[in-house]
């Protein structure tokens, strides 16, 4: 990962510095490389759903747990209530500051304004936000963690085209925003790379956040696409994806999951329709962000996690795409090498 290389290059210096600090703090522990992180307290502020949503938030939680286990940092986490305003989000971040957090991550772009305000009020605390790179959250002590969803989606798009027998595939997005457009664009580019004549149906579920939490709508949209001949549908619609899988099951068609390995996390009875998932490793971003602070070099500014970094990838759980992984990995290599540039919209 780009910044990890940078971080690694200063690691030796940081380690030295930390050894010195650790020596004075913790009674002369000479191997302070790990223990030096003990003054870091990493905290997550989730959106509604929080830990246990089997998707986006859970992935962030995984990164936090990893930081606790491997870096020995203290952790804390707070979840949002339904129907909040920015003041409530900002207050949550401030409560985390009061609780002694040194590194605070807002999980989801809805935290953008709150992170912006809280980071200005607490210049000594490091903040991070997932999925936002706007001026709202920008600041010298803010890391904006974003992903190359288009690159991961390219690979599952290629997989969809290879697996499709009808030459028709579909994309269902939760909401028509640039974030989801990236999934859409990557998927289309990947499918077209395999089969230039492929027919791609596209549907966005809602104009607001409800599109990510409406399985019934997801199901209706997917059924419409399957009826029109599509046999593989990729969704980037959060909780609405459950409906897409149900429709796939009922129509004996295929579906592609998103964010986490949904062939493992989706409802048991629909897992077998999920041929692959475009995994967005929020955990990698959260862990790297915390690790950088432990290493004494806190991140700030836009940090993109891409295919090369392992920030995005595809899964093979269930063995449905084992026959084409060689071809997919060839595409992956081309993207990493810069031979293929995946569009973002």
């Amino acid at each position, binding site marked *: 990962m780009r910044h990890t290389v940078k971080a690694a290059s200063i690691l030796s210096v940081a380690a030295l510095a930390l050894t010195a600090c650790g020596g004075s703090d913790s009674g002369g522990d000479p191997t302070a490389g790990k223990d030096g992180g003990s003054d870091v307290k990493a905290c997550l502020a989730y959106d509604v759903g929080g830990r246990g949503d089997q998707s986006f938030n859970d992935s962030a939680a995984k990164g936090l747990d990893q930081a606790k286990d491997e870096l020995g940092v203290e952790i804390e986490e707070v979840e949002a209530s339904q129907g909040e*305003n920015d*003041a*409530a989000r900002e207050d949550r971040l401030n409560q985390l500051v009061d609780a002694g957090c040194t590194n605070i991550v807002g999980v989801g772009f809805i935290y953008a304004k709150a992170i912006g305000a809280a980071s200005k009020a607490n210049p000594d605390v490091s903040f991070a936000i997932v999925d936002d790179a706007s001026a709202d959250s920008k600041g010298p002590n803010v890391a904006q963690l974003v992903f190359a969803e288009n690159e991961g989606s390219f690979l599952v798009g290629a997989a969809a085209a290879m697996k499709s027998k009808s030459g028709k595939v579909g994309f269902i997005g939760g909401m028509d925003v640039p974030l989801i457009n990236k999934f859409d664009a990557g998927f289309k580019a990947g499918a077209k790379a395999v089969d230039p004549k492929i027919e791609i149906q596209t549907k966005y579920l809602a104009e607001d956040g409800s599109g990510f939490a409406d399985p019934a709508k997801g199901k209706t949209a997917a059924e419409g696409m399957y009826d029109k001949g599509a046999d593989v549908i990729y969704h980037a619609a959060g909780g609405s994806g459950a409906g897409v899988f149900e429709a796939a099951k009922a129509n004996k068609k295929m579906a592609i999951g998103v964010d986490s390995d949904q062939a493992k996390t989706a409802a048991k009875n629909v897992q077998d329709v999920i041929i692959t998932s475009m995994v967005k490793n929020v955990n990698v971003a959260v862990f790297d962000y915390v690790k950088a602070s432990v290493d004494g070099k806190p991140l700030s500014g836009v940090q993109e996690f891409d295919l090369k970094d392992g920030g995005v990838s595809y899964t093979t759980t269930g063995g449905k795409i084992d026959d084409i992984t060689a071809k997919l990995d060839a595409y992956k290599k081309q993207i990493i090498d810069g031979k293929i540039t995946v569009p973002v919209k």
Partner: protein
Amino acid sequence: MKFTPRRLVLTLAAPVLAVVVAFVITSLVLVAVGDPVVQVWSTLLSEPRPRTLVNIVNSAITYYIAAVAVAIGFKMKLFNIGVDGQYRIAAFAAALVAGQAWLPGGLNIVLAMLVAMLVGGFWAGIAGWLKVTRGVSEVISTIMLNTISAGLVGWGLRTWGTRAEGSNTRNTTEIPASSQLDGFKLIADAPNRVYTLLVLAVLVGIVYWFIINRTRFGFDVRATGESETAAVASGVKVPRMVLIAMIASGAVAGLISMPAFFGADHSYGLNFQEGVGFIGIGIALLGRNHPVGIAFAALLWSWLEKASDGLQLKADVSPALVYIIQGVILLAVVIAYEVVARFERRLEQKQVTRQLDTATPEGASA
């Protein structure tokens, strides 16, 4: 009704009973799921930080207006579930108009509020008109109008909203600085301020109280709510009342987001606070549709809500606990008022019997 010591005790009995019941049930739930009971209550009852206190008051301002909007319908036995859609579409329309800044400073604010009331009133009026002319239940029509308003606002935001570079949200044009309200520094040591439009909430409360209790119109509203047939018999034009009450409810609903809009948000976007209409229903029930009762209920509600973060941090319990407490209080209040009302009726019956007994000559029964 006459004001006697007994009446006072009975009035206070219901809320006190409700709080005690809620306390006991919540504690039982905590014990059942193995959460630290003492820790939860001590966290809940500890004094919030000044910043949080300001947020509690600010939320309560928003909820208060929402609850009054719902209460206007309740007074007429109208169940306006559509407050949620009414305030959303009204807030969006007001944000669009205010963002244009056709008028300077304060006038812009007044214009935006008028637009919000008009749009909110119109949106609720559709449901009222359907009920009056076609007999469509306002519950059904307002639920549908909620969905339609969400769609319309989404479409409007896409058409007229703008998106900043790198952002995923879309917002309407921000209102000029001259129309932004700084707020009151009511609480010392707090870095944030109480919404200036606290004034609006107080005004809404006073006007509501005055109209319901001191005007012919208010009397008709209450009469229709108590007994429609009796109201018709005494010459009240019920359909007209239904339509007016619905429009009034919607107009007040239109004001719900104004304090936050001028005090904090300054534009309409995806970060808009949703679901306030439904919270208003709970608070109106809790406050017994009374302007003062609603104020206390709104404060209680937002205080519980803001305790959620602290509970997660200090007591390590799920945020769902706050929903449980809110639900239990609501249920307890409804039950407690019924219990007290029955008890009161029985007391009155006994009193009447006693008076009748003493009025009867001794020898008559012998």
